[in-house]
């Protein structure tokens, strides 16, 4: 008799989930809320971790491996830690490169200053690199667009550049662009090298995977404080933060692309008599080119997504302007800067994609002039516009509009947006406010309370139980270990708040995505349309989503959650469409011949078969949501993000705290990832989709 029940439980997952739920509810209600009770909250045994981390960072910076370094000012040798000298030289190098590109386009004498003495420079006032007039740059963007993708891209580049210039965003845009131009190649080189290394050596790949997982799920904020500690403030620090964040997807894309090459192609290369080097550079990398260039595209998008966050560590440009505008609640100004970032993102996105698909024509027999026609036109236009601008120096007494239109003199549409926001406020204040209130008091408030009232024993039982039922004992221990790690810190309550926000946003975003995706995936044209909409929204840097919501819902959890939901709906939709489109035609036909209605087709055929793919989308949703929830700290929430954000201003123990907290968020994301991936795999196997 007993055995019989056991068998039923063993074979039925719903029964197991049922029992788990009962145990969870019992624990939830029976464990007393009492600080001394270990079932309620675990002691913070791991509280030393951030402190230790901090000690390590500072020891590395100031104590380990001392070197004798000559100090030219005091004319003596000084003991300095090797690591610090190392980070210093990286900072210097990066800063030089960024400044170099910046001055090349904007003019100035900082670079010249490096090569000549200060006094000489002061005496020779004329010695300054001239700025590139925005007129010439616009022509350049137009020609580059034309070269890459014909007239349409030319218009996009030209008009985009014209807009940026006459709306007075030329200088910050170039600052941002120079940042991207330096950071992207570094990410590319690093990503490609590690990717190739991982492809060639299985052990390296195995070692890289968990590191990449953590790097990609860490909130961007968490990197900032350690980076300040190691590299100081400035454009280079922003660049380094971006490199840390944008390199992992490049590595992944490279490995993925190389692995997708059919073994026959490799053999064909070998049989053609390739040396190892030729095989790598002439066969492997070019064959994986599409994936690798997709990686470059992701890197550029990440760079632009990072500009605001990078401004926290001293990067100049549009990101800084946006941050300042947001801080002083100037929605119009913030929207303008945000629009510029999106515009640059879209232009770079289209340009790199066009470049990726560009082909070489072997039969064109062109003269030198024909071949370099566009370059020559560009050169001439630089010359003409520079001369005109130089001559115009005499006409304008203060600002030479032919070089650059400063931000306060440029056209602006900020006041229209401000007016629109005011109008929305005036008209919808009560409805918005009551919706906000309703959500906060009726839904979010109780949910938050429920999460915070959860005894740690109940939480661990629930998460480990789910992991066990879906993935078995190994998954259970892995997830349990990660959760325990967080539970034994002193930040468990904050983590619970993060979890509550993430849960809410993930559920809403997934529902949105599945519904929207399902509706559009009914027709081929609909799928195509919605996927391109997703593409478009994905070029938006994450914080851009925050701008409108703050002004509709003020600084509350609602704003952050709505931004997170909108942001995370994109991957949920995309994967739903992919999943539904991958249902084989024969099954549709079989369904039709069995006489299913549209609804029956959706519930009985499409959704079950698309589910594994949809779950991978939900997985993405979790990562996106967590990023946005943490980013929400920017406008003030009270979860882990707020603490990470707070660590920015704590020089003493900031780095350790930030890394630890970032790691917590990352562990949460990875826990979900482990379970969902396992489950999707199993469903796929059960459906025979692999």
């Amino acid at each position, binding site marked *: 008799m007993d055995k019989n029940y056991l068998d039923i439980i063993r074979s039925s997952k719903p029964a197991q989930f049922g029992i788990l739920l009962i145990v969870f509810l019992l624990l939830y209600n029976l464990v007393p809320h009492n600080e001394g009770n270990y079932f309620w909250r675990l002691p913070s045994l791991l509280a030393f971790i951030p402190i230790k981390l901090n000690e390590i960072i500072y020891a590395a910076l100031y104590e380990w491996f001392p070197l004798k370094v000559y100090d030219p000012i005091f004319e003596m040798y000084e003991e300095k830690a090797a690591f610090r000298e190392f980070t210093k030289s990286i900072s210097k190098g990066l800063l030089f490169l960024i400044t170099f590109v910046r001055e090349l386009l904007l003019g100035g004498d900082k670079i010249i200053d490096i090569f000549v003495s200060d006094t000489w420079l002061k005496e020779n006032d004329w010695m300054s690199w001239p700025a590139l007039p925005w007129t010439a740059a616009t022509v350049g963007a137009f020609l580059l667009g034309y070269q890459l993708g014909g007239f349409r891209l030319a218009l996009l580049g030209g008009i985009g550049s014209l807009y940026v210039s006459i709306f007075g965003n030329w200088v910050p845009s170039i600052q941002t662009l120079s940042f991207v131009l330096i950071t992207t190649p570094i990410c590319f080189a690093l990503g490609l090298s590690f990717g190739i290394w991982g492809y060639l050596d299985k052990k390296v790949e195995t070692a890289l995977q968990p590191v990449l997982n953590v790097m990609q799920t860490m909130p961007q904020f968490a990197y900032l404080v350690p980076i300040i500690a190691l590299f100081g403030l400035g454009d280079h620090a922003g660049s380094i933060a971006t490199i840390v964040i944008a390199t992992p997807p490049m590595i992944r894309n490279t490995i993925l692309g190389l692995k997708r090459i*059919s073994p026959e192609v490799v053999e*064909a290369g070998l*049989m*053609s*008599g*390739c040396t*190892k080097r030729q095989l790598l550079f*002439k*066969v492997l990398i070019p064959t994986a080119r599409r994936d690798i260039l997709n990686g470059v595209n992701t890197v550029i998008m990440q760079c632009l997504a990072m500009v605001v966050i990078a401004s926290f560590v001293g990067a100049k440009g549009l990101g800084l302007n946006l941050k300042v505008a947001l801080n002083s609640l100037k929605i119009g100004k913030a929207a303008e800067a945000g629009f510029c970032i999106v515009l640059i993102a879209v232009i770079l996105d289209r340009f790199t994609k066009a470049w990726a698909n560009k082909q070489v024509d*072997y039969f064109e027999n062109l003269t030198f002039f024909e071949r370099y026609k566009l370059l020559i036109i560009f050169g001439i236009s630089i010359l003409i516009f520079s001369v005109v601008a130089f001559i115009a120096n005499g006409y304008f007494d203060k600002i030479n509009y032919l070089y650059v239109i400063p931000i306060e003199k440029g056209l602006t549409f900020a006041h229209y947006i401000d007016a629109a926001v005011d109008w929305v406020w005036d008209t919808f204040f009560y409805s918005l406010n009551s919706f906000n209130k309703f959500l906060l008091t009726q839904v979010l408030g109780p949910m938050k309370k429920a999460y915070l009232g959860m005894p740690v024993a109940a939480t661990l039982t629930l998460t480990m139980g789910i992991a066990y039922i879906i993935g078995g004992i190994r998954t259970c221990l892995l997830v349990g270990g990660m959760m325990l790690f967080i539970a034994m810190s002193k930040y468990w309550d904050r983590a619970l708040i993060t979890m509550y926000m993430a849960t809410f946003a993930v559920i809403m975003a997934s529902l949105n995505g599945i519904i929207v995706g399902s509706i559009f995936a009914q027709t081929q044209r609909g799928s195509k349309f919605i996927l391109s909409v997703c593409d478009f929204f994905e070029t938006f840097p994450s914080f851009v989503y925050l701008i409108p919501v703050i002004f509709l819902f003020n600084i509350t959890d609602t704003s952050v959650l709505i931004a997170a939901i909108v942001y995370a709906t994109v991957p949920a939709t995309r994967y739903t469409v992919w999943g539904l489109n991958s249902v084989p035609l024969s099954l549709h036909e079989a369904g039709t011949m069995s006489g299913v209605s549209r609804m029956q087709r959706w519930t009985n055929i499409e959704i079950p078969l698309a589910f594994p793919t949809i779950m991978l989308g939900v997985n993405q949703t979790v990562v996106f949501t967590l990023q946005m929830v943490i980013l929400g700290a920017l406008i003030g929430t009270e979860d882990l993000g707020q603490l990470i954000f707070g660590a920015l201003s704590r020089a003493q123990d900031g780095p350790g705290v930030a890394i630890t907290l970032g790691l917590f968020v990352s562990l949460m994301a990875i826990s979900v990832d482990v379970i969902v991936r396992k489950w999707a795999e199993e469903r796929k196997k059960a459906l025979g989709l692999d």
Partner: protein
Amino acid sequence: MSPTISCSSVYKIFGNNAHSLLSESGGNVDAKKFQEAGCIVGVNDASFEVNKGEMLVVMGLSGSGKSTLLRCISRLTDATSGKILIDGEDICLMNSKQLIELRREKMGMVFQNFALLPHKTVLENIAFPLQVKGVTTENSIHKALEMVELVGLKGRENYFPRELSGGQQQRVGIARSLAVEPDIWFLDEPFSALDPLIRKEMQDEFLRLQSVLNKTIMFVTHDFDEALRLADRIAIMKDGIIEQLDKPDNIVLNPATDYVRKFTEDVPREKVLKIESIMDPADPNASGEFAIKKDDIVETVAEKILNSKEIIKVVDEKNTVVGSINPSKVIKVLFGG
């Protein structure tokens, strides 16, 4: 003259302790025992030779080790043990530099799924082996244009592989493998991924090319009809072992094992057998009306023989009488019994 390719006791065993297991077994490999020990036997004691200008077709079903054998001989994988001589040199002992040299000068290979470089045009793909060798762009493109003409792709030089049909892609694959003018030509199921009609067309094309080029060829296929059509000799493989290696008509007439018989059973004999293999010794009573050649395929001359109702002389290329053929033998081939 020594054979172009010569293999003796070639083994390929996949798995971690392949070497130790093989040396323990002393060359007597039992696939089942090896599988229990975690090793998979790819090629089991293969010994054969291919002479200059000869076409050896290796036939076997999937998993029979035919492609593995081909990859051992091109050293895309290293044989676990055995000797593989190419023009008298053991390629298993070559270092990577010698191997690259060998592939650049002497070998060409065609792949089942074409294995074209997706980022290169037809012309660039064909010129690729020349370019890695260091031939200038101008010369290599010039040579590639010749090859394009040879395989009948003129006018499509600038297409990308994705813009071509399967048959056209394989023509590019063939042109690429021939660009360096190799002596030895490996073809790994080159026509298996193609539609039946295109396959037939490509086989004809292949025979035409071979009649012009006269390469030493190893051709791998799972299609017995294709093997019969093309081969000078056929090696039939099963579970890594070469079950039988002989001329097509001999295989059909005298299948060495039951496994081989399964393939030959349904083959219409008249399409395979040559007069030579069913003729009797020279008969003085043979009719003097006409003679047939010993290399004629039975099907092509059957009507002629049956119409004459007499014993007919069989001659060789030099028109010397080498035997005779009785119509009753032809009837037996045609209708069995």
